[in-house]
């Protein structure tokens, strides 16, 4: 019989825990639904509910304050919503508060938002009609967003045109001082190389001419022809002149660049410098072009000389020597 009693106790505990859980669950759900407790009612009239239904939550400043109790169609543009409001929240709602239909989250349930309005007012009483604020619903928001988008698109179109126009104007090019500086520098370098080349060439030619005069080398035999000697002399003279020209040009350029960088470093700013005189920019351009042309012509002369069969052997020898030197250099580095 003792066993029976233990079993009964266990059964009692089992049944009791089940019932307690059930009552607890009912109580919590009931509290959510405001079935228990002394709540009171507020009303509000909307023209559009946007899908608000019975049982939806009512929020006061975002705080859970009650539920929608009843929805009644009054006429074709007015719907009266009766809300059951928690008595704890009741004393904080003023008569001038506004109610609006909103949404929980982006896609959630509909809610009624009651928000306080600044200014003194009496507290609400049972059955009061609140002011309604018809809020934009999701569709409207999306519609507006689309409109905004279109506006942005057309604005950006206009902006694009403007930018293109500015871009294509000469001023913008000149504002960019850095690129000019770089091209100036590279031009100067070219000139340097050119002049040194010319120098080497002249020295080489001098050697060659002396050799020929002494009757050395294979070419010597051929140089009995005075015509050939004449052209050679001309060529050498021309080269000298070109290198002299180039030298003076380099000097001029150097001065100009110095001026430019002086201005820059004096803090007058690139724009200032370049806008000082657009003519100057043009001048620089011209000078550079000329320089290019000049060097081109010189190069052409040199090329022609190289290809002349008479000097071919000499240049080959030069090349071979260069190669040997390189090979030795390579060997030395490898040994090391």
């Amino acid at each position, binding site marked *: 019989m003792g066993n029976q009693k233990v079993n009964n106790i*266990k059964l009692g505990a089992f049944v009791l825990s089940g019932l307690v859980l*059930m009552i607890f669950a009912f109580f919590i759900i009931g509290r959510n639904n405001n079935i228990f407790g002394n709540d009171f009612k507020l009303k509000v009239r909307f023209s559009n509910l946007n899908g608000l239904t019975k049982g939806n939550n009512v929020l006061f400043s975002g705080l859970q304050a009650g539920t929608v109790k009843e929805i009644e169609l009054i006429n074709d543009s007015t719907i009266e919503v009766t809300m059951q409001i928690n008595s704890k929240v009741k004393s904080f709602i003023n008569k001038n508060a506004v109610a609006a239909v909103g949404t929980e989250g982006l896609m959630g349930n509909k809610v009624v938002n009651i928000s306080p309005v600044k200014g003194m007012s009496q507290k609400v009483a049972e059955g009061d009609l609140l002011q309604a604020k018809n809020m934009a619903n999701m569709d409207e928001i999306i519609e507006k967003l689309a409109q905004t988008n279109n506006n942005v698109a057309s604005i950006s179109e206009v902006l694009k045109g403007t930018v293109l126009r500015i871009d294509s104007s000469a001023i913008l090019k000149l504002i960019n001082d850095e690129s000019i500086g770089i091209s100036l520098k590279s031009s100067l370098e070219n000139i340097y190389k050119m002049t040194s080349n010319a120098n080497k060439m002249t020295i080489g030619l001098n050697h060659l001419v002396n050799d020929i005069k002494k009757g050395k080398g294979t070419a010597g035999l051929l140089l009995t022809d005075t015509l050939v000697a004449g052209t050679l002399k001309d060529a050498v003279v021309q080269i000298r002149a070109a290198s002299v020209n180039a030298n003076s040009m380099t000097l001029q350029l150097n001065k100009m660049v110095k001026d430019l960088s002086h201005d820059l470093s004096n803090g007058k700013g690139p724009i200032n410098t370049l806008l000082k005189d657009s003519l100057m920019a043009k001048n620089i351009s011209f000078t550079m072009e000329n320089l290019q042309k000049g060097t081109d012509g010189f190069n052409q002369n040199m090329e022609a000389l190289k290809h002349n069969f008479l000097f071919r052997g000499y240049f080959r020898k030069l090349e071979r020597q260069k190669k040997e030197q390189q090979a030795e250099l390579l060997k030395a580095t490898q040994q090391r």
Partner: protein
Amino acid sequence: MSLVIRFKNFLDETGNIARFTGRFFSVGIKPRYEHKEFFNQCYIIGYRSLPLVGLTAFIMGLVLTMQLRPSLVDYGVESQLPVMVGLAIVREIGPVITALIFAGKIGSSIGAELGSMKVTEQIDAMTVSGIKPFKYLVATRVLATTLMLPLLTILGDAISLFGAYLGVNIRSVTSFDLFFLQVFKSLDFSDVLPAITKTLFFGFAVGIVGCYKGFNSTKGTQGVGISANSAVVLSSVLIFIIDLLAVQITELLGLN
């Protein structure tokens, strides 16, 4: 031909079960009541089933949560996981799984117990001893299953929700308070009441079918096995049929 016979047998069986059920309401409800046996059966049917129901409910809640998560993550509403799981458990999974486990454990044990009592003449012995076997054996068991299954379901739901809470916490973190709030915020009386009400019918079906099969067990140990087996099969099918009816009725009543 054999199909016709089978159909006739099926109708015969259905009629017999209906008659048996009618007998429960005409005989079983009248005094005298077998209090002691009723409480004893409540203990066996309710309390003793709790560990099994609890285990399955716990696993169900955990697994359901983990299975639902990926699709919710796909839709970007992972935060709604407690709501989804809570609704699924309370409305459908909890009652049906508990009832099926219950049918497996209790339906078969009632079928086998009454079957073997029938076969070994214990039921006749009761009659001879001045006990109404229908009252003593059937009414107590049917009443016990009818009342215990809802309790088991409630406890199972609670355990299942706890499993779901752990399931949510495996991959992400939520506090118990938040989980609890989310679940109960989504629940309404229209979710809980029909679910609990239908378990009453599940329990009744399990009890009636188990008792009927046991009470009409044929001779021999094989007969006992058959009654136990067919009690489980029939009551499981009945649970689903009742579930189908329940959803239709709640729909009709506008409680959904």
